[in-house]
């Protein structure tokens, strides 16, 4: 079993817009190893979200290749790519937008199980209830619709949905940035807990350095579509090499008096 879960090899993504060509991702190579959490950091427009979608095979790179567990995602026929999907799941920034508004909470969680024909309806239901319980949603509220939940609860439901297919890789695109501080902390706890319990590989994308520092084993920094630095979390925060990384770190405003910075 190779050590690499997903590997991007010098991928470039160019978008054609009315304003001209935009190089969202420019010759980036990135690997998420089995069982590790890779943090991907950058400001708005750095290309980090596009990178996530490229690594999920949701977008096709203009050049370069992405391999998931040794398989080139962009060479796979659509059907086989769909069959591979259960092994990589995604959690999005805007939980309300990412849930199906016309499905109840449990309906949303059951949907991927139904798509991949896992078990019968009854067993899917049982499993979905277990998942909702796992992420801390009162199962008595399983029949409510997404808009009846608060933002934090919606994100929990989205996480439950992503976990249903027992993925090897979970890609999270700014999963806490639309949430209030106290709710963000709850979700971070949940991620830490899930990672320890389920042994997932994580690609965790955020503009918030503190969040990434807390969760990631390794951190990659993107700026203007390019990868500027990549190293272990400890090294990166203790001794950043790249100027841009240094600039990012020095811009952080500490909260506590005894903060390390």
């Amino acid at each position, binding site marked *: 079993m190779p050590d690499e879960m997903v590997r991007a090899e010098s991928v470039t993504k160019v978008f054609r817009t009315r304003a001209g060509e935009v190089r969202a991702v420019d010759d980036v190579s990135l690997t998420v190893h089995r069982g590790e959490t890779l943090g991907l950091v950058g*400001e*708005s427009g750095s290309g980090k979200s596009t990178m996530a979608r490229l690594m999920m095979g949701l977008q096709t790179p203009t050049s370069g290749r992405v391999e998931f567990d040794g398989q080139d995602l962009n060479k796979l026929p659509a059907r086989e790519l769909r069959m591979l999907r259960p092994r990589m799941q995604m959690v999005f920034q805007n939980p309300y937008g990412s849930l199906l508004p016309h499905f109840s909470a449990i309906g949303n969680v059951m949907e991927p199980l139904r798509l991949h024909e896992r078990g019968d309806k009854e067993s899917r239901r049982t499993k979905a209830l277990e998942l909702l319980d796992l992420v801390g949603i009162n199962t008595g509220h399983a029949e409510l619709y997404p808009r009846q939940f*608060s933002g*934090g*609860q919606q994100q929990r439901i989205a996480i439950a949905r992503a976990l249903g297919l027992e993925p090897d890789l979970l890609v999270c695109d700014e999963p806490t940035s639309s949430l*209030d*501080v*106290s*709710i*963000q*902390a*709850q979700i*971070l*706890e949940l991620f*830490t807990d899930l990672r320890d319990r389920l042994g997932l590989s994580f690609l965790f994308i955020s*503009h*918030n*350095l*503190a*969040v990434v*520092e*807390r969760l990631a084993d390794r951190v990659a920094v993107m700026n203007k579509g390019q990868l500027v630095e990549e190293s272990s*979390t400890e090294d990166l*925060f203790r001794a950043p090499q790249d100027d841009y990384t240094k*600039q*990012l*770190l020095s*811009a*952080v*405003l*500490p*909260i*506590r*008096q005894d*903060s*390390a*910075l």
Partner: protein
Amino acid sequence: MSEDALLSVRELRTTFRREGAEPLTAVDGVSFDVRRGQALAIVGESGSGKSVTMRSVMGILPRTARITGGQALFGGRDLLAIGDRELRKVRGREIAMVFQSAMEAMNPTLTLERQLTEHLLWHGICNKAEARKRAVRALGDVGIPDPEKRIRTYPFQLSGGMRQRAMIAMAMVTEPALLIADEPTTAVDVTVQRQILDLLAELKNRGTGVIMITHDLGVARYFCDDAVVMYAGRVVERAPMDRLLDDPRHPYSVGLLGSGVEVGGRDLPLRPIPGSPPDLSHRPEGCPFHPRCAQAELPRCATEQEILTIGPGRDAACWKVAVDA
């Protein structure tokens, strides 16, 4: 305490009318002071009433809102009592406001010139030519290069950081005594955030009082001298900024700090507050925080809440804290 205060808000209460339901109380008995050349942080999460508080003082609430009590003393006048006509003379001239996103707070179809000068003319501060001069100077002051040329452009033609600066210039061109900044750095990248704060700090040093509404404790610590923490429309704690962050007292403040993650704090345990903030239409009786509070003692916490002084310049709305103190 309010003798040297620039603005003193006392027992402010604002409600929103709703169709077919009881009015919703968004701000409930809020009091605080801001001093000249000092910055006050109003800290809270969504729905805590921090923005509504400042919009009440400015008299720019939506039509469905009503101020049902309190005072806002500014320069010897009660802003809540003088009526819209008089308040308008204060608004934009003596108290100015900076918003979260300049993209939204600046009119996309008017040039910077028009938007930076119109209130100078409304308030009769100077004539058009002089207004233009002042606007150009203000743009230069906030660090926009080539202001003579830039003043003829539209907001969308500037970068995010420049646009935010232009909005600050728009607020400062009348040289107000008090600036209200509503999450002024939330919409910008971290690398720009510091520049915007330093810009505001310059104003503070020149004697302008600042009220900064924010949910970001790092920003609050960097920029502000005092802090007010709000939860579900009420003030739960008031303290000098450093004291609040290093030694929070109210259980909600403690929880907020325990939830905050920061760089270098990797090994500090996260202590999130369980549950979510109440829907304002179902606000718990007594202390609104008690259902989420680990130290809550019933029935007292569910029936009463009063603000108690717990130290120099410090109050907390929790009787348990006062007992400990």
